[in-house]
């Protein structure tokens, strides 16, 4: 059967001028709704001396004050459980989720109504359809199905678009590998880290996943889904195309996805979001091609409106023309490139974990790694602990030298200590990988 290439042909190919007119219309209605029904937003608008009726052009968006995670957390603490953000009562909710806790002390708690949930799954439909998932596909979720939102929306999206869905919930990695092969799975959804882990375990079981029916891997949950070396390793190992997506609990779903043309980045779903890129220090917008911080305004979940939310995600926006697929949604080249607050300062040099990973993953003999930062007397040190793939141990002497040189060259001559670890000693991850360990003492005053 011939399908449209686009999930929503009308909006995904809308000329930019009309797309922006649509964004303005939705912005006006969403801000009016938030002002009328969310005490949190009303207070913020009033404090800025702004009324939603004053938003006449898309540029007026910048008059809305930034919304931060800290404000959200404070509101939850002052008024448990959900703060002053919700626009309606809990009786209208059908789902509850919370953030995974990778940043911040208080998890962000969210509620969704029936239509909010429908919208959340819809955004995943844009992404899955865009990457080529069709009703004939068999989709596998290597996901624990807990309170963290993770792939929940993607699961329901796959049902909605008519695919056969296999929830690979609480079971061992070995059992998951066998299920993927046994059920003729065509599409696997997982974090990049866990997709590698599945492949490693398959190897141990003597199963060649490149010979399985899997032809698509949809990645989410970690910035490494768009690191070329990670994708290359995964695509070679699985014999399948890898597509990146990124979302966040705060909006409930994905905002960006890689289409089947694989342009080296992810399209923004601009009929449902406004994505600004700003200089994180000045708050001013940065032009195309310049690294900045993502600020998201969502037109989806009306239960807890998200207006100009500072994500701390590091992105670089390119015009939609950077991809030949015909979509008019702009692109984040390299997806989410990390977080501004992930940066570590080591002896005056900025170190970003994603940049370190991008270098490490160029060496496919490396099985697992950890970035370890500690203090030696008064001096900060950084080590890379490395496990080699079985059968590749002979490459270690040359590899460790090359890796130390490459990392140092990319970081103003900073010395990286490269350490060989016994296989199986470094932690493995199913959801978001935590490969950075910073054991420097925190100063107490």
């Amino acid at each position, binding site marked *: 059967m011939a399908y449209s290439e686009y999930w929503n042909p009308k909006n995904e190919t809308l000329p930019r001028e009309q797309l922006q007119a649509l964004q303005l219309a939705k912005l006006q209605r969403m801000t009016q709704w938030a002002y009328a029904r969310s005490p949190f937003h009303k207070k913020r608008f009033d404090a800025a001396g702004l009324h939603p009726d004053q938003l006449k052009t898309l540029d007026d968006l910048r008059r809305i004050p930034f919304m931060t995670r800290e404000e959200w957390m404070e509101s939850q603490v002052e008024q448990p459980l959900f703060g002053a953000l919700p626009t309606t009562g809990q009786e*209208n909710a059908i789902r509850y989720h919370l953030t995974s806790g990778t940043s911040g002390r208080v998890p962000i708690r969210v509620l969704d109504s*029936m239509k909010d949930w429908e919208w959340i799954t819809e955004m995943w439909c844009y992404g899955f359809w865009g990457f080529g998932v069709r009703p004939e596909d068999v989709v596998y979720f290597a996901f624990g199905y807990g309170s963290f939102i993770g792939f929940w929306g993607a699961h329901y999206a796959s049902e909605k678009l008519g695919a056969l869905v296999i929830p690979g919930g609480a079971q061992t990695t070995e059992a998951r590998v066998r299920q993927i092969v046994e059920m003729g799975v065509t599409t696997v959804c997982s974090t990049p880290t866990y997709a590698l882990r599945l492949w490693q375990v398959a190897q141990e079981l003597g199963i060649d996943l490149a010979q399985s029916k899997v032809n698509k891997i949809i990645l989410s949950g970690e910035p490494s889904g768009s690191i070329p070396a990670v994708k290359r390793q995964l695509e070679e190992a699985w014999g399948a195309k890898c597509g990146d997506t990124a979302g966040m609990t705060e909006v409930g779903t994905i905002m960006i996805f890689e289409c089947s043309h694989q342009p080296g980045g992810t399209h923004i779903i601009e009929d449902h979001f406004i994505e600004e890129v700003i200089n994180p220090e000045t708050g001013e917008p940065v032009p195309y091609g310049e690294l900045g911080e993502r600020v998201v305004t969502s037109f989806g979940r009306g239960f807890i409106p998200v207006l100009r939310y500072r994500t701390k995600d590091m992105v670089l926006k390119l015009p939609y023309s950077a991809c030949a697929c015909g979509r008019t949604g702009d692109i984040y080249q390299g997806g989410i490139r990390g977080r501004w607050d992930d940066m570590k300062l080591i002896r005056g040099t900025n170190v970003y974990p994603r940049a370190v990973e991008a270098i490490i993953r160029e060496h496919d003999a490396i099985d697992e790694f950890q970035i370890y930062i500690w203090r030696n007397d008064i001096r900060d040190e950084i080590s890379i602990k490395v496990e080699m793939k079985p059968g590749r141990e002979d490459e270690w002497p040359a590899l460790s030298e090359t890796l130390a040189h490459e990392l140092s060259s990319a970081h103003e001559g900073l010395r990286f200590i490269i350490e060989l670890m016994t296989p199986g000693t470094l932690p493995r991850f199913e959801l978001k990988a935590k490969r950075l360990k910073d054991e420097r003492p925190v100063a107490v005053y």
Partner: protein
Amino acid sequence: MADTDILGTTLTPMEQETLRAYDVLKQLAARDDLPPCAARNVRKALACLWQATNDLDLQFEQLYDLGV
């Protein structure tokens, strides 16, 4: 019923039909004489139609007051 979408473009026959179905479901959801099996399934259907009409720019509204 509106004859244009949010951007002011005239609705196609398919869009008119879709919007009509959405409006019918909204009217049904507002009734208080539906048995639970109808009341809940109508709301579920309305949530789906809300999404379709939202994607097609036929409406952009909230339905919490209908429990959706």
